[in-house]
């Protein structure tokens, strides 16, 4: 316990003094390291520490939140008392003891970050970098980066719970820029896990770099893609950004509780094609979005959101479930970037489950369309469910066969319209890491899916409709 039992109880009770029915202290100590090679030399080695406390008080469906980087008892007591001024009532609850919450460890670490020297880490990056440059003299820049994060969080709350978690994350990234003298093209890969340096041992970084180099060079001669409405085959892994944007965000408690989501009140109703099963699974071992407890101390869950096309659950935290129906409780998905953000419901590892088709079946079924295999991310307006995501690597499909590479395209639509249009799902589910930015800051999430077919979708490219 970073904050002593006596002090944490005093702080919680100071917060409860004016009628709050729930008080919570969140302590975070996050240490990050970045090792980057660029321009064929060490570009930067940086380290940072984010450390502070957030205090949250709830009174029914009202919330007050405060944060400070001053961890003195005086400062924390003052913050709690200042926050209590947000309510104007008498004390209704007192906390007298804290019991430690026990939990298992979903993120076993085999090789801690401290096991390798800086020299070893830089040599690993350099080996990958060389592989990219070796591929072609059209490679003009290579960024090789290792990201490490070691985080300790503690949660103390007025339900008498003390919970803590140690979170270790590692990501190994490659960005390659190619040029033919007239234009630039880029390619990126960046696997990551809630794990230690075993990620580096299990990743063929040279192959990852080579793939990026090949993709960037190939893109130099790729023509513009087609535009307009057409069938779209989305590749597995990061193709899951479709579900993340179009359905994941609108199923988060904040959108549901504000009734701004098209899925509000649709529990038990069909919202997708009957072949669609979707999950927010916070208990995948070493998943990039996996934590042993969420940021309000609740246990994560393997939350099935859609079963055979029917909406069966939302993603909820303590606060948003109060706003919707307090009997629903939390699904263990309350998250925040750091202590400066009020926490809210966020996705963890979100994906569409396997279907019964094969990737080949799906490609063969398309007469004219596109096959998207690389993605750079996306965005959604949760109030209208209009989303966009960009495919950085895509091919034409002609008469059931994969055609030629095309320049990046954007795909837009409404989630509630796209989900029923998923007509085939393959059996090759894979997940990939990403960083999702929303109300409580940037959170680490996995997205995923098998290869799947959307019967029609609006595709945009610089070529315009053609």
């Amino acid at each position, binding site marked *: 316990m970073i904050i002593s039992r006596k002090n944490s109880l005093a702080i919680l009770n100071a917060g409860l003094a004016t009628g709050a029915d729930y008080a919570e202290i969140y302590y975070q*100590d996050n240490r990050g390291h970045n090792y980057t090679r660029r*321009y064929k*030399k*060490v*570009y*930067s*080695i*940086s*380290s940072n*520490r*984010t*450390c*502070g406390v957030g205090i949250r008080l709830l009174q029914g469906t*009202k*919330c*007050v*939140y*405060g*944060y*400070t*980087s*001053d961890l003195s008892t005086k400062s924390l007591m003052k*913050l709690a008392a200042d*926050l209590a001024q*947000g309510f104007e009532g008498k004390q209704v609850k007192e906390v007298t003891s804290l019991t430690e919450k026990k939990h298992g460890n979903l993120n076993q670490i085999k090789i801690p970050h401290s096991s390798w020297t*800086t020299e070893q880490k830089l040599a690993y990056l350099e080996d990958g970098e060389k592989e990219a440059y070796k591929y072609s003299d059209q490679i*003009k820049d290579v960024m090789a980066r290792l990201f490490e994060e070691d985080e300790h969080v503690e949660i103390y709350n007025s339900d008498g719970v003390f919970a803590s978690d140690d979170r270790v994350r590692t990501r190994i990234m490659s960005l390659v*820029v190619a040029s033919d003298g007239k*234009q*630039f093209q880029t390619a990126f890969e960046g696997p990551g896990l809630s794990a230690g340096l075993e990620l580096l041992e299990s990743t063929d970084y040279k192959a990852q770099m080579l793939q990026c180099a090949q993709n960037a060079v190939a893109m130099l001669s790729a023509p513009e893609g087609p*535009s*307009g*409405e057409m069938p779209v085959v989305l590749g597995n892994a990061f193709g899951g950004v479709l579900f993340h944007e179009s359905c994941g965000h609108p199923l988060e408690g904040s959108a549901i509780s504000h009734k*701004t989501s098209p899925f509000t009140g649709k529990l038990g109703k069909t919202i997708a094609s009957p072949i669609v099963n979707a999950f927010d699974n916070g208990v995948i071992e070493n998943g990039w979005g996996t934590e042993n407890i969420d940021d309000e101390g609740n246990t994560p869950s393997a939350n099935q959101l859609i079963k055979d096309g029917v909406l069966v659950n939302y993603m909820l935290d303590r606060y948003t479930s109060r706003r919707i129906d307090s009997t629903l409780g939390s699904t263990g998905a309350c998250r925040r970037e750091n202590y*400066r953000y*009020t926490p809210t419901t966020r996705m963890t590892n979100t994906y569409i489950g396997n279907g019964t088709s094969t990737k080949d079946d799906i490609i063969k079924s398309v007469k004219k369309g596109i096959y998207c295999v690389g993605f*750079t*991310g*996306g*965005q959604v*307006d949760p*109030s*209208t469910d*209009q989303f*966009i*995501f*960009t495919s950085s690597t895509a091919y034409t499909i002609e008469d059931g066969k994969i055609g030629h590479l095309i320049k*990046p*395209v*954007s795909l*837009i*639509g409404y989630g509630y319209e796209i989900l029923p249009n998923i007509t085939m799902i393959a059996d090759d589910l894979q997940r990939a890491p990403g960083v999702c*930015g929303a109300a409580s800051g940037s959170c680490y999430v996995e997205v995923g899916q098998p290869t799947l077919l959307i019967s029609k979708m*609006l595709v*945009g*490219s*610089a*070529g*315009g*409709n053609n």
Partner: protein
Amino acid sequence: MSININKYFEASKASKMDVFQMSYGTTTETTVSVFNNDVENQQIGVASDISGKALYQGKIGSFSTDAIDSKTPEIMMQAILESAKYGKDDKIDNFYKGGKKYRKAKICFPDFKPSSLKDLRAFALDISAIAQKKDKRISKVQVDVTMITSQSLKANTLGLKAKESSKLYAGYVSIVAENEKGEPRSGGWSFKSFHNLEELKTNALKAIDHASKDALDFFGSVACKGKTYKTVLSPDSVASLFSFYVGQLSAKNVQKHLSIFEGKLNQLIASKSLTVLHTPHVSSASATSYDSEGVPTCDFPVIKRGVLTNYFYSLETANEEHIECNGCGCGNGNAAPITLTIKPGHFTQEELFAKVNNGIFINNISGLNSGINDTTLDFSLPCQGYLIENGKLSTPVSMIICAGNLKDVFADITAVGNDTYDGSGIITPSVVIKKLAVSGK
């Protein structure tokens, strides 16, 4: 501000660092969020952070933290030495020695009137109620209002010492409207004031007008025919696109042969209608009197009638070319503009529509986090707007994608409006683009 610089300087000296530079900042924020006339969240926060970088035996090390106590100087020096051991090669000339005068950025005014949490609550509720009454179809209103004050200090062992303060109110109103079929449309707009809640309210009312129009006008809107259109871009759309374009004007990218504008200084790179000025001291949230290296920021033309007149320089990139740094350092030797102003023209927006006669007006672009490649400048973004027919706005259109390359967009400007918008560091008017590919029906 309570930080003892000397403790850090002494610790750096004891660690035998050649130069040590630190930045210290404290930010206090008070935020109220109102949803449908209900105060949903109130947030208060104060946080300080300190970062240090040093040159040690010809290499750079750095560390940043918000855990600040008596042990921080020692922890910081250890971390810097560790990262400098294998760090980037650097030299003492890439640290600013101080000595030049700083011109004050207009971000902290003596008449700034702070507000209590209670005042902010009342303000946000008032704005929410006004927005709600704007139209019967408005079903949801979210208002966020924040008062932010910050102080920062930058100093190094060569003599640099610079301070800056900022006091600002910032807000955002988002509106969801529903028609009789329950079809939702949304709009959102930001507002700010460097002075008081009265000015903030004036700006909030304008934001409500913008946000509600964006929501209400687009009921029943559908995609237009996909083709190439003569286009009027709204000021906020121009700001969104231009923020990516300027990355290619960083001297670092140019020197590393990663810019499409390499070797283009004093050459025509954009339309002759386009003049862009670096204006780092204007009343904008991103304005500042010194850059991330402590170098004074200054005014200079970036593009003059389409001709590229300056790249953005950090100390490292300026020293590389043996020229004076223009105060655009943004960390690790990179450079970026502080605040830019695209020089307005003489035409009202209506006159721009008349000039286009038949085309499209794009007033909202989204998907910026994934739909633009800042290296290639290729973009493909969802947008909405109105068709322009016979010189006037006609049918609203949505679910369309505009795409192309930003180099072409800013080369194809044929007219510039006299309206302005501060889009997070880029103050822009509306512009007319000769042709833009739109994917739709």
